[in-house]
């Protein structure tokens, strides 16, 4: 069965995405890392669905796909706004709220 190696691969991809999200300061790369993490979660769902022979995994994949499409369209709009206002994509520059 390929389910266990698929789950290991999902963990590795999620870890890579998390490392990218935490280490990169360019907001575009942080978005790409988010995409990688979403893909890892989708892979875990597909692997689970294949392991148990159920259709729920693929249905969850469809929902994740919808979520990613909505998230990317809004987030890229925000990226355009930020680059337009601050003239940079450095996440540390967006510190107006002193967070």
């Amino acid at each position, binding site marked *: 069965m390929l389910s266990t190696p698929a789950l290991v691969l999902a963990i590795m991809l999620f870890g890579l*995405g998390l490392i990218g999200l935490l280490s990169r300061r360019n907001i575009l790369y942080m978005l790409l*890392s988010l995409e*990688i993490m979403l893909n890892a979660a989708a892979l875990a769902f597909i692997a689970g669905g294949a392991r148990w022979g159920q259709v729920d995994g693929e*249905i969850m994949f469809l*929902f994740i796909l*919808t979520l990613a499409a*909505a998230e990317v369209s809004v987030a890229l*709009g925000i990226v355009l706004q930020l*680059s337009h206002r601050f003239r940079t994509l450095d996440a540390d520059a967006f510190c107006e709220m002193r967070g």
Partner: protein
Amino acid sequence: MEVLFYIAAAVTVLATLRVITHVHPVHALLYLVVALIALALIFYLLGAQFAAALEIIIYGGAIMVLFIFVVMLLGPLAVEQERTWLTPSAWVGPSILALVLLGEVAYLIAAGDHPSMAVAEPKQKAVSIALFGPYIIGVELASMLLLPGLIGAYHLGRRLSKEAR
């Protein structure tokens, strides 16, 4: 099957590593497209053909096109900049990884034994029935998510063009 899976998994991890370590956005996007295609092959090997097709069409197609448009909008789009972004050497890495994937797909087609093909059609039927049966509330929630997403993207884009004028 096992060997194909491990090769595709290695391609995915390598491409993802290059995504998070690259400096040029366009190069990182090239590698991410390769990673998504490799992931689609893994979905196929796991027996989720429809998910594999959607991964390529929506992730590799639509979402990556969005990213590329935004990268192009961010910087001044000049011929000179494109020349520095897309040097011939930038294509080498993604091309090699994509060729590995192409070899795998060619092997899958040439081998001719599609063990998962026989069960594909009834499985798709079961997925559709479950999607519009017990999961109908999820479909409604997804539509309720997509509409605010559309309005939000429109709003954010519209204010930008007004300020630019």
